[in-house]
């Protein structure tokens, strides 16, 4: 007990008046009938219950012969609690919540357990020791404060175990002046999580969390990217997706102490739009996300009739903007139809292209029908920027996207041919018969110098691929064209 806590305890004890005599005299005398009420319970119901208990005891004794370990202690596993940070450890418990054994699920987990022997220990003591070891080994601190608790137990036991473990983690971390963030989930023994865990050598708990994130945003991430992340990063992503439900809860806030910080990201995003704009001037939403292998702050706000969504690289102190999108805030009223030339002129105006240069710029225009009106998609390159506009038939600007353009070929350090070969090699894992000759309509673009966006067709399939310039990592999606 802390010194101040002891003082509080002593002082309240000392100021408590002695009212025992008054209580004693006001308590009605306990008549035999009152006591008999309790003994009345020994009816047939109780007799049956007693017999059932006796039978259960016999069964337990018989079964315990099967489960007795060599030490003579009961070693039947009734539930398991897995703790993931980066170290992953699994605590196996018997029905009295005593530890049967603690298993390391990865190399860091082994380091955390060291020579500690937990057999027969209380769950609280075990969690306290393991979290303490993670703090000492610098896996948990104020910049990485997330712990994933995955519990495999009966529904009735689940709440109690999560309560005990979450409290112990929060207490132990608060002693180290760290505000914990605990993600707890009920472990379901699903094939997909088990398969993922085996394939990537991660715990089933982490696999289940990754599956949950993938389900919440199916097109955004790849499994290969997410398995490499630590629980704190996954927790930061999960917070942005708001994935809590009846089997997954998030307590506390995941720390972004390893990154540039929300305030800085907001300032960078606002400055990009207007140098004199501050967070007080607009209503800003900021959350963390993971895009193309990089942790980013996603900053959203409305300013001057435009809705902005700006992604700022969270890992770089200089705060590179890695995504910039804006669209009109709210639908504009319909007006007079514009011609294609007038719409093109509108886009050139916004991109500040001088009149005399407009004729030399090649513009690709596609038409589409949406919400009962015609929408134009215009793409062109001016200077070192690739523009993409969406403008409706009345001249309402629906979206503007600007990307850094580094030339057509070769793009970055790879030629288009090299990119195509790399992409095909990846796609062949799913479609072994695909060859370069059979493909058509290749489009390769470099987005912000970080990612190649690649599109191509093969038979009735249309592929959209992304390739990280730094890591060479490729992801792809496909759909069957009707």
């Amino acid at each position, binding site marked *: *007990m*802390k010194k*101040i*806590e*002891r*003082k*509080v*305890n*002593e*002082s*309240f*004890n*000392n*100021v*408590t*008046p*002695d*009212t*025992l005599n*008054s*209580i*004693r005299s*006001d*308590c*009605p005398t*306990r008549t035999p009938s*009152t*006591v008999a*009420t*309790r003994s009345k319970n020994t009816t047939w119901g109780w007799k049956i219950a007693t017999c059932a208990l006796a039978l259960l005891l016999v069964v337990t004794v018989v079964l315990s012969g099967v489960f007795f370990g060599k030490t003579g202690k009961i070693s039947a596993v009734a539930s398991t609690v897995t703790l993931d940070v980066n170290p992953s450890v699994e605590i196996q418990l018997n029905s009295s919540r005593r530890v049967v054994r603690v298993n390391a699920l990865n190399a860091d987990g082994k380091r955390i357990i060291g020579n500690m022997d937990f057999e027969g220990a209380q769950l609280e003591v075990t969690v306290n020791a393991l979290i303490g070891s993670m703090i000492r080994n610098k896996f948990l601190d104020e910049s990485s404060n997330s712990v994933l608790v995955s519990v495999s137990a009966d529904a009735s036991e689940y709440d109690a175990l999560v*309560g*005990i473990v*979450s*409290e112990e983690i*929060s*207490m132990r971390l*608060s002693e180290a002046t760290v*505000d*914990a*963030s605990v993600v707890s989930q009920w472990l379901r023994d699903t094939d997909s999580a088990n398969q993922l865990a085996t394939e990537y050598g991660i715990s089933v708990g982490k696999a289940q969390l990754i599956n949950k994130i993938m389900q919440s945003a199916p097109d955004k991430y790849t499994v290969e990217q997410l398995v490499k992340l630590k629980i704190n990063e996954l927790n930061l992503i999960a917070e942005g997706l708001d994935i809590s439900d009846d089997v997954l809860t998030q*307590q*506390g806030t995941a720390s972004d102490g390893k990154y540039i910080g929300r305030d800085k990201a907001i300032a960078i995003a606002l400055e990009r739009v207007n140098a004199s704009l501050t967070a007080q001037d607009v209503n800003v939403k900021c959350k963390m996300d993971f895009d193309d292998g990089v942790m980013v702050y996603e900053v959203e706000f409305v300013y001057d009739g435009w809705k902005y969504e700006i992604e700022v690289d969270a890992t770089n102190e200089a705060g590179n903007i890695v995504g910039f999108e804006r669209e009109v805030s709210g639908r504009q009223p319909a007006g007079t139809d514009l011609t294609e030339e007038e719409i093109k002129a509108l886009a050139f105006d916004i991109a500040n292209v001088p009149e005399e240069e407009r004729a030399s710029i090649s513009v690709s225009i596609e038409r589409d029908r949406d919400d009962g009106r015609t929408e134009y998609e215009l793409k062109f390159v001016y200077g070192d920027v690739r523009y993409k506009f969406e403008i409706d038939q009345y001249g309402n600007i629906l979206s503007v996207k600007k990307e850094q353009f580094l030339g057509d070929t070769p793009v970055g350090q790879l030629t288009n041919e090299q990119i195509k070969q790399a992409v095909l090699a990846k796609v062949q894992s799913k479609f072994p018969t695909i060859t370069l000759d059979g493909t058509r309509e290749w489009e390769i673009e470099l987005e912000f110098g970080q990612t190649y966006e690649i599109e191509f067709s093969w038979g009735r399939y249309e592929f959209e691929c992304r390739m990280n310039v730094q890591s060479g990592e490729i992801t792809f999606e496909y759909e069957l064209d009707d």
Partner: protein
Amino acid sequence: MTAKCVKPRSADVDSAIVGVASGEEGALERLYALVGSAVYAYALSLTKNVYDAQDVLHDTLIKVYESAPNYTSQGKPMAWIITIAKNLCYGKFRQQRTVNLTEEELDRQLGSTSNSSVEDRLLVSKCLSELSEDERIAVVLHAVAGLKHREIAKHLNIPLATELSKYNRALEKLKLKIQGGQDEKNRT
């Protein structure tokens, strides 16, 4: 009451309630010794009035005595007793909203109802005057009643992390205030 500085253990409280229910001799005394301070501290935190808290302590113990034969242990006897005390405190508020006392008046009342030291009364007064209601409740329920933080979070209907930070902040605040109060006393 003399200082024991022990948080009541659930098993002991459970056994005292069972004793009270069966009319066992000395069981009521055991129960009072185990939970009296906790109930009083909790009631004082809510009502901020010494006499009201004394009434709540009295009525809570009578209610526990009456209900003991029907009590089924779920391993959290103190939480059950505190809930009884809470309902009695709210009943008091409904009857007549209690008047908050000045620190001096509180000190005088505490002195007249117990054999406590100036230091004890200073700490209790600071606890009542300097901490918010949630902070006071978190402190007495954990430090005096021995409730777990998650039980307190449930009682206050707030997330566990919030309860923990309220608790730690309250202890820090108290530490500073007591230090400040003693420095002031030393100067005079």
